[in-house]
């Protein structure tokens, strides 16, 4: 999947993206790193088909057609759960909207909940869950259709650090087990280095790609990676790139 010279401006005159080129390869974990308001989320919404680019195109490599709507899982910054529905019914939503029969959907729902470790909470309501658990439900919902591409928009930004580290590890495990392609938006240098194989550093508005960094540390990564010298070195590199990106725009 690729974005070619994509621009997006809004009716109020804000130019969120201008000349964004981005390639995402199958099975890759790529992070979009940039300051708040650099159009990272806009790029994600364009990929998801939730809004249309003002210029340029989104290309899906197999068919080669622009705007081909794929099976996509989306995780928002907030858990975005329906408070009136149980955990199981929230996770089932993508299937319900596609008129999947209950008997067919049930094992998929159970499997998705199992993967995020919430199998015993299927009948709970969102308000009964902690922030981290709500986010797990949100991830289970994105997984339930078995989409190849997961788009994640700062999903852990509102969580405390302990929960965030835990979810970082779980997400990496899921990614390795399921072989999904993940595009992960974040403004945290540390999170992007820990998770991704490739970091795309973006400039502030209008957003463009400033620099790409490969993080060649091998997977699986665990807590030991967080404290390694390699990790610190990559963080410094990413941090410098981010500072340069912001300085270049200023």
């Amino acid at each position, binding site marked *: 999947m690729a974005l070619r010279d994509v621009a997006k401006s809004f009716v109020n005159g804000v130019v969120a993206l201008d000349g964004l080129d981005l390639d995402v390869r199958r099975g890759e974990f790529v992070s979009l790193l940039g300051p708040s308001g650099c159009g990272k989320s806009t790029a994600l*919404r364009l990929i*998801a*088909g*939730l809004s249309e680019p003002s210029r340029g195109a989104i290309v899906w490599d197999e068919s080669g057609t622009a705007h081909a*709507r794929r099976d*996509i899982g*989306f995780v*928002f910054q*907030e858990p*975005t759960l*329906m*408070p*009136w*529905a149980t955990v199981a019914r929230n996770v089932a*939503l*993508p299937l*319900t*909207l*596609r008129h999947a029969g209950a008997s067919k959907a049930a094992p998929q729902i159970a499997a998705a909940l199992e993967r995020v470790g919430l199998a015993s909470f299927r009948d709970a*309501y*969102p*308000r009964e869950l902690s922030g981290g658990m709500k986010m797990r439900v949100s991830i289970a919902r994105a997984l339930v*259709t078995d989409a190849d591409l997961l788009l994640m928009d700062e999903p852990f930004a509102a969580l405390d650090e302990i929960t965030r580290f835990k979810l970082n590890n779980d997400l990496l495990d899921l990614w390795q087990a399921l072989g999904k392609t993940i595009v992960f938006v974040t403004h945290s240098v540390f999170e992007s280095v820990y998770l991704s194989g490739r970091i795309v550093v973006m400039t502030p508005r209008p957003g463009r790609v400033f620099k790409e960094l490969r993080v060649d540390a091998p997977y699986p990564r665990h807590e030991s990676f967080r404290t390694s010298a390699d990790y610190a070195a990559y963080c410094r590199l990413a941090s410098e790139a981010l500072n340069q990106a912001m300085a270049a725009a200023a």
Partner: protein
Amino acid sequence: MSTTDHAASERILRLVLPVAALALGLGLWELAVQAYALPPYVLPGPRLVAQTLVADWEVLSTSLVATLVTTFEGLALAVVGGIGLAILFNLSRPVEYALYPYAVILQVTPVLAIAPLLLIYLPQQGAVLACAWIVAFFPVLANTTLGLKSVDHNLTDLYRLYGASRRQVLFHLKLPSALPHILAGIRIAGGLSLVGAVVAEIAAGSAGAGSGLAYRIAESGYRLNIPRMFAALLLLSVAGIVIFFALSGLSHLLLRRWHESAIAREG
């Protein structure tokens, strides 16, 4: 004292104090009526009112049923009409722009002034029902409209992402999300429907087998049957209280699992 003891004693106080205040008030009232030997056509004591309530129960209960039937019919029409119109507004901007101002006008025009006109063009029972509907319908419409518009934007995006139809968005997302607003509207509408029915009955003012409690009050006034006026008034306020608590209970029942308003917090 532990916090649970404290909470329990506070709950008892909240029950006991209003009852004590009521008993005190009624006692003073009865005492004053006796002490000044006030005739019943000036001010009946509470004991006489209670006796009248029992003695006239046959007439009063028939009237109570008549008023309640009107109230619930008005409320039911208001709920159906209010939610239906709000959905129509939500689906079509032009319809909302075209009709919303008239819904507001219907609401701000005092129903007491509309009632005599309605009585000219509609049969009496129809006019009374129309009045109950007019006053009860707007809170349902306004609250439902607000509720349908207050849907979480991310959830809306999520439904789009998974290719939801307009029907699915309405029934799976907008209506459940608006439910707390709708129920608040219905709770207001319940009380107002009673007000509308009473206003129309008083404006109608003519006798008949199906005459409601408000008509009994007016009629008893002409006959200087003041105790019966009080008895009918008492029944009307009890009816209002029961309607309020019934609708609050319904709201709690529907929202208790998920909405903040229905969840008791500790501490």
